[in-house]
């Protein structure tokens, strides 16, 4: 059947239309599937600036709720040091999160100086989140009573102030009384304060982006507390001292009575207000508000989940460099980029449903994580701070719930609310520090029953960190070794023998031939360093992979021995986390007196029979495959103590004196161990990234620069012009 021209056009047109639609569909599908099964090549080499770690990719691609990440980075001017570089790095990182989030992550970088409206939108969005929306309700309710109370206070003060002039006419002696004049001044002051506080609160509630109820309550409380104190003093004078004024008239006495009762009435209301508001906590969203408003000149990242948010400060995202051995950044930036670590940690905190309790177990003495407040500042001997107080703060920041358990006084393990699991950090039963001389010394050794309490708790939870180490001799004069009370348990149950009688030291050649002296690391011979700075090395364990290259130190180390053969407990796998490498410079000895005597007499010592020579492990993990229990054992009791983790050192650099963390890996090692125990390898720190940007440092700021620029701008076009001209000339011929 023949078809006409118009029919043919329709037919062909339809054919083209269908094939175009099909081609478009194929393109969309190709892009979609290439996104789903994406492969990428990061051309930044080892720096891998364009790649998120596998853990982060897993985390963001498995998110069960929408997350918004907003970087607030202001670049005030091109001369602001590092600001542009930092903003660019954060923008790229956020882009990676959005790419890998597959629709679950929305990421933006906002310059709050250039775009204040977006900052305000963010503040409004945060205040609407369920966690913060109801937080200020009690503050709001309390504040509703404040204006009436403040008005009443102002009215009472005004009314009585107006009567002072008349009172002085009938009682001229009053004007010469100092207390009376102070009362007058105070009444004036209270009136002014009432007005000022009222205005401040009104402004805080009405003239800012979000009503600052918490701040307003604070202002009201400060105002009323001050007023209360003043009025109570005035009331006392009216009732006592005022009546002693010579030639005081009855009208003045009546005034004092009446004013006193008016003050009493107001103070009752003030007390009610102060009582009602005394337990109100600061409102979280207002903390955010302060920090975000400050971010106009600073830099923060806000990570929002559906119900709550976290704010990451410049220090969280750009911590100061801790690796002293690394070459300085080409642009001399003193900070490293830890954006991925900070954001992923915040995401985990926001999206994680169950939390982990960390219970520090000790026997007698003071809490290892909570300091006793110094009650009497006049006390000559200060109570030392708790040895793990900073670590405790770090753990809380990492979303752990922390608690302590004194086995000596409490015979049941603490129950931590909201905790899905508990990790016991078992300190040596020796009190971790000797208490203040004013406090009674802890007495008695841990009993078998108490030890069983601890091991039963560990068995029940299946997760523990044992901080073992060298046990010092019980007597400084006699070679009677100390004991590590959990040694037997660790050997029999976990296959790890803590050789606590031996103290490992690093030695160096002495002046006398064939003799060694302790190698003082930072003048402290009991510190043995990790990595390039010392003979201990981290293995390829999941805990230590991100910590390689960072400095750490173990103090008062006792060697560990992994039990083999028939003694080895069934189903237990022991992995080494850190070990002293094979070296003739490290050995562990059990007779301190002998070594001391050698050093004093011969100015050097040498290893003896019975000493334990390197290599040996100093940190291990053990997993019971049958019931998935895990423990970590460290042969240094104090490796995570604040005295080591918070130690800092100084170094002279070209731009001046630089302070850095002396042992940056110590606290990370502890925290990573906790994450490993809970099976949260995802949370193990990925460590900051350096990713230094190469600079045009060969280009000097001199007269040649404009010429170079001229070459860049002019050389290409000039060449094109010449070639074009030649072609044109040739064609004309």
């Amino acid at each position, binding site marked *: 059947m023949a078809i006409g021209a118009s029919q*043919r*056009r329709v037919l*062909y*047109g339809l054919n*083209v239309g269908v*094939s*175009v639609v099909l*081609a478009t569909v194929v*393109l969309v599908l*190709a*892009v979609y599937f*290439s*996104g789903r*099964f*994406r*492969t*990428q*090549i*990061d*051309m*930044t*080499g080892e720096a891998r*600036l*364009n*790649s998120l770690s596998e853990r982060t990719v897993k985390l963001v691609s498995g998110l069960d709720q*929408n997350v*918004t990440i907003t970087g607030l980075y202001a670049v005030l001017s091109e001369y602001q040091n590092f600001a542009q*570089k930092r903003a660019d790095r954060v923008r790229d990182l956020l*882009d990676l999160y959005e790419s890998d989030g*597959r629709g*679950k992550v*929305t990421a*933006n970088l906002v310059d709050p100086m250039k775009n204040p409206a977006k900052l305000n939108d963010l503040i409004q969005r945060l205040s609407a989140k369920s966690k913060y929306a109801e937080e200020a309700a009690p503050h709001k309710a309390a504040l509703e009573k404040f204006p009436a109370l403040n008005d009443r206070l102002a009215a009472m003060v005004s009314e009585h102030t107006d009567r002072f002039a008349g009172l002085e006419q009938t009682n001229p002696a009053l004007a010469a009384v100092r207390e009376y004049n102070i009362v007058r001044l105070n009444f004036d002051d209270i009136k002014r304060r009432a007005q000022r506080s009222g205005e401040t609160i009104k402004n805080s509630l009405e003239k800012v982006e979000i009503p600052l109820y918490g701040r307003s309550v604070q202002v009201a409380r400060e105002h009323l507390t001050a007023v209360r104190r003043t009025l109570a003093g005035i009331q006392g004078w009216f009732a006592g001292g005022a009546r002693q004024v010579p030639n005081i008239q009855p009208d003045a006495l009546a005034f004092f009575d009446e004013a006193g009762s008016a003050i009493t009435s107001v103070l009752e209301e003030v007390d009610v207000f102060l009582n009602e508001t005394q337990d109100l906590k600061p409102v979280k969203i207002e903390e955010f508000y302060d920090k975000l408003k400050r971010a106009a000149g600073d830099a923060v990242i806000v990570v929002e989940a559906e119900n709550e948010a976290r704010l990451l400060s410049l220090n969280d995202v750009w911590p100061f460099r801790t690796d002293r051995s690394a070459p300085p950044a080409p*642009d001399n930036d003193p900070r490293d980029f830890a954006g991925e670590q900070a954001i992923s940690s915040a995401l985990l905190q926001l999206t994680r449903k169950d939390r982990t309790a960390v219970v520090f177990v000790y026997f007698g003495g003071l809490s290892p994580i909570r300091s006793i407040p110094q009650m009497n500042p006049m006390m000559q001997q200060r109570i030392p701070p708790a040895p793990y107080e900073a670590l405790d703060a770090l753990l809380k920041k990492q979303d752990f719930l922390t608690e302590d358990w004194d086995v000596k006084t409490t015979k049941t393990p603490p129950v931590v609310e909201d905790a899905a699991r508990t990790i016991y950090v078992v300190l040596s039963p020796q009190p971790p520090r000797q208490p203040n001389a004013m406090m009674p010394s802890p007495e008695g050794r841990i009993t078998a029953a108490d030890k069983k309490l601890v091991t039963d708790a560990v068995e029940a939870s299946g997760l523990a960190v044992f901080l073992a180490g060298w046990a010092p001799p019980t007597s400084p004069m006699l070679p009677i070794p100390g004991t590590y009370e959990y040694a037997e348990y660790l050997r029999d149950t976990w296959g790890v023998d803590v050789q606590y009688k031996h103290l490992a030291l690093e030695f160096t050649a002495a002046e006398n031939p064939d003799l060694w002296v302790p190698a003082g690391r930072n003048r402290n011979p009991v510190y043995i360093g990790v990595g390039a700075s010392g003979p201990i090395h981290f293995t390829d364990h999941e805990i230590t992979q991100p910590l390689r290259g960072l400095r750490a130190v173990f103090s008062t180390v006792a060697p560990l021995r992994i039990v083999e053969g028939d003694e080895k407990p069934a189903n237990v796998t022991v992995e080494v986390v850190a070990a002293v490498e094979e070296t003739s410079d490290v050995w562990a000895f059990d007779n301190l007196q002998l070594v001391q005597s050698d050093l004093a007499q011969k100015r050097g010592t040498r290893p003896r029979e019975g000493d334990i020579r390197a290599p040996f492990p100093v940190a291990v993990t053990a997993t019971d495959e049958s019931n998935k229990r895990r423990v970590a054992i460290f042969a240094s009791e104090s490796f995570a103590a604040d005295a080591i983790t918070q130690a800092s050192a100084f170094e002279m650099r070209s731009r001046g004196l630089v302070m850095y963390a002396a042992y940056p890996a110590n606290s990370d090692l502890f925290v990573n161990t906790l994450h490993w125990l809970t099976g949260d390898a995802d949370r193990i720190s990925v460590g900051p990234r350096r990713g230094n*940007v*190469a*600079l*045009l440092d*060969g*280009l000097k*700021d001199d007269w040649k*620069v404009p010429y*170079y*620029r001229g*070459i*860049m*701008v*002019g*050389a*290409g*076009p000039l*060449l*094109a*012009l010449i*070639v*074009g*001209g030649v*072609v*044109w000339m040739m*064609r004309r011929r």
Partner: protein
Amino acid sequence: MRNTAAIMQRELLSLFCSPVAYIVLMGFLIATGVIAWVTSAFEPGAPATLRTVFTGTMFVLVIFVPAISMRTISEEYRSGTFESLMTAPVSDFQLVLGKYLATMVFYLIMIAGTLVYPIMMMIFGSPSLGVAFSGYLGLIAVGSAFMAVGIFASSLTRNQIVAWILGTIPLVLLVLFGQFFVQFFEGRLRSFFQSLNIVRRFDQFNRGLISSEDVVFFLGVTVLFLFLAVKVVESRRWR
């Protein structure tokens, strides 16, 4: 293949014999040079990276690439050589592919003119060659997609200026509006707009990340618009 090569050769010859090509080349290099100057990419102590230059270059390409491609097919319509091409033993696909390859060769020569920047940077610093390579790959990918759009536009009209406008407008929309719309959406809709966001896709290359998704996107756009151009050329036979 031989036919495609012949078309390509003919197109290249006509391109390089025309002053327009040199004007475009000169204009492009001046524009990128000015970008390098105003973005302070070549300041003492500045980062040894071409990122800001390449980002600006991508916007410049929106104007220059349709200028290269505007004459490819529309000139054949206008000069009346299209009919003889239709009768020649050359398929529509070979015609379009030959023209595309010729313009891409010219485009490659054009961006080769910017190699002076990394060379200068290598003299005065140590830029990451991997990142520079990735940036150039991005420029080629973007240029390829833009060129296909330009050839499609050229196939729609016999007027070169109209072809340039028809090529530039969708590119401007794609480049600017993709980024513009993204900021108003979250979740899946944002993902959708992000997938159309050419600036973002190019930026991935520009910072040293070669992703299969971006490569497929630019290749796909190239193939789609060349396919559309073939269909338009083909339609001349039955319209």
